[in-house]
């Protein structure tokens, strides 16, 4: 399952710049079917990113495509083994998925600044 932060629901919604505080997540299954989940973490005063990750994990997401993911969200993402791709120039869900298919999206992971783990 692939997740993309989006500003709205619909056929081909615009990608949301924010990850932890985006309005919705668009979830795309293996058959390409889109479903939307509201991001209930977006109004948290702190740690929205981490909570958003746990929401996605509980929806069996294993790939995230997003413009920018903060270091506090990267820690649990790496822990859960979720793959992350930078959205690049894609502005909409369709463009992002196309980019993934063509293998032109940049994978983000180890080179990201992460919080120190103990």
């Amino acid at each position, binding site marked *: 399952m692939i997740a993309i932060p989006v500003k709205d629901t619909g056929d081909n919604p615009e990608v949301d710049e*924010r990850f932890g505080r985006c309005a919705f997540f668009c979830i795309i299954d293996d058959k390409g079917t889109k479903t939307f989940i509201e991001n209930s973490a977006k109004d948290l*005063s*702190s740690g929205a990113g981490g909570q958003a990750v746990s929401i996605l994990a509980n929806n069996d997401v294993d790939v995230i495509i997003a413009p*920018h993911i903060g*270091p506090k969200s990267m820690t649990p993402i790496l822990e859960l083994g979720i793959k992350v791709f930078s959205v690049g120039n894609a502005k909409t869900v369709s463009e992002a998925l196309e980019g993934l298919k063509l293998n032109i999206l940049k994978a983000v992971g180890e*080179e990201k*600044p992460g919080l120190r783990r103990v």
Partner: protein
Amino acid sequence: MKHKEIVLISGKGGTGKTSMTASLIPYFPKLVIADCDVDAPDLDILLEPKILQKEDFIATAKAVIDSSKCINCGNCINVCRFNALSPGDNTPVVKEVYCEGCNACSLVCSSDAISIAPYKTGEIFDSVTEFGPMIHARLTPGEEVSGRLVSEVRKRGKKKAEETNAEVMLIDGPPGIACNVISSITGANLAIIVTEPTTSGLHDLIRVHDTAKKLKVPTAVIINKDGLSSEYSNKIVSYTETQGIILLGRIPLSNKILDSINNKKIPSINAKDFFISNGWELIINNINKMIYSS
């Protein structure tokens, strides 16, 4: 094209971070200005921004005790690890400055009298200056969430930069190396460390540079108050060489900057000749090179 973010930091306070930030402003025509030194914001003194919109910033929540329900059992006082609750006549007293809003007190309350309510921790201003839009903020003195207020200022600055098609967002950062600095520089295109040739200046330069390095933010250095100690200027220069940090330039110790600040003027405008003769334009060129090469 996406705007570039330049943030000025220093580790040590008082090295001239705000003076240098202000002096860069006139050289970036399509600009958004963000003052992230939220517990000592000073850029507004020089820029005299016109405030378009002022908004309360509510980032924390704090314990509130309903006196009609409280039986003064004292459970909350015992559970609180932050000494935010102390005994009172009818109900325990909440010291808001210490409360972190963890909610442990309401968990142990025997009469369901405690709730955690949103709390104003600062104000954010959306303003305009003659040089472009400016986002700034003021933390309520004594509050702990300066990192989050900083993030909010940056976020709004970014949005403003997109709306106005700005090329650069210039950020005046806070001193130190903790949460507010981390929030100010994470993901920036360039962090300019303003240092001074003193033992403290060098010591703090190293710590703040380590912080930026850890966050993988490209850095460059400006030595301000050059001439105070040639010994320490040399030490800073050799530190930048061994670390491979670009030394953008050296601004001599001079009353010209202090006089500008005291007259509430931007130093590089008020003392233009002084800045030009000390290579200010070259510094600007090198900054541009750095942000557009990354």
